[in-house]
């Protein structure tokens, strides 16, 4: 039963198993491992304080949501003047929904070329993605959340999640394909 366990026991069961996932998300949000550890630590403090409000369901998605919220607080504190999201998000989604060149383009990079891309080039390409695209890509391909979980977490329609993901992957593919 949920109620019969102490908060620290629940913390051990709900939060600790997902530390690696939390750290992986924070690493891509903040851009480096040291900041990621700070963000995850803050998130875990919040998770512990709010452990009574965790009411079952996907513990990983619950923790990752907290990590993401803490990251945005951290960002505001850390880089008060840094423009992270440029332009209007609505424009961004319009852009990503617009028909693009390279849709099933036979001239697109070969799958083998993408598979052979070296780690550093791929990491650099992911870092260069616009944050709203990168966030969706990381939640899907690094953290393995489903479309629905991502939509619920970001408060976005499913279609927006799908088009951002598609756009993020399209950008990565064309970058990796051009680096010969």
């Amino acid at each position: 039963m949920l109620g019969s366990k102490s908060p620290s026991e629940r913390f051990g069961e709900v939060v600790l198993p997902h530390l690696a996932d939390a750290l992986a998300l924070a690493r891509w949000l903040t851009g480096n491992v040291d900041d990621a550890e700070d963000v995850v630590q803050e998130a875990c403090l919040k998770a512990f304080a709010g452990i009574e409000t965790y009411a079952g369901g996907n513990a990983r998605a619950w923790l990752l949501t907290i990590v993401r919220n803490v990251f945005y607080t951290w960002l505001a504190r850390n880089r008060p003047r840094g423009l992270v999201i440029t332009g209007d998000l609505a424009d961004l989604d319009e852009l990503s929904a617009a028909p693009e060149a390279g849709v099933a383009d036979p001239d697109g990079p070969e799958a083998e070329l993408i598979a052979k891309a070296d780690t550093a080039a791929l990491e650099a390409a992911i870092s260069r993605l616009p944050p709203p695209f990168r966030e969706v890509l990381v939640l899907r391909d690094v953290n393995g959340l489903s479309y629905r979980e991502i939509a619920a977490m970001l408060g976005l329609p499913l279609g927006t999640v799908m088009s951002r993901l598609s756009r993020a992957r399209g950008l990565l593919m064309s970058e990796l394909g051009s680096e010969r």
Partner: protein
Amino acid sequence: MSAGEALPTNPTDLRLLVQALADGELDAATSLALERRMAEEPALAAEYARVVALQAAIGSLPRPQVSGEFRARIASLAGEDKAAVAPMKYRFGSYDWRALAASILVTAVVASGTTYWATRRSGQDEFVADIASSYQRSLIAASPVDVASSDSHTVKPWLDAKVGMSPPTVDLSKDGYVLLGGRVEVIGNKPMPALVYRLRKHLITVVAAPQGPGTVATPVAKDVSAGGFSIVHWTDGAFSYWAISDIARSELQDFVTRFRAAVAAG
């Protein structure tokens, strides 16, 4: 039936479907249609191969290691040993910004706390009124439950799947309260799990709201009423409960006592 009859013709939508296939998000019928289409269109198949290759490449990127030291630090957050947490590293910008952020935060908390305190009563009254009107609707509806089962092991996972949470579901049949099933209540725009029990010809609905930061702990069951129904409210564990029925208040109190005892014995 030609392959891809059910597929969109718009290339952008088709591209999204290819991604969804690679992500395992398509149902069997659409997957089949798309696979047939890809067999006919090499360009589409190449797109799929690219997505899969990219996923594999991202999947094989090194992930940050959770060091033993870091894990211990996090584990100690929950322990009694608070001293270990004290030397928290701050790489957050300059001191001035922290102080400013902190003061803004304090102001915001105080201000929103005051607003919250000022509006809380009416908020809770509204919540109770919502519960009463949903209960009234459930009495009129063809079925008071969305999932009909007297087996708590059926009701709990169903609620979990629908609303992502479920309260402890206890069997009280030996006390005369038959579990009819569960339903999803929407109270204040939030979906919440509800259990439905029957006593003789009367229905008792137990709405379980997850305890949030604004929840007032109510360990001792409290009588409320709205719309002419008896309502008993209490908090236990992760949930804030509201039991509502048209039976006499003393009987509802008795139900709540048994429900809570069964949950505690869980």
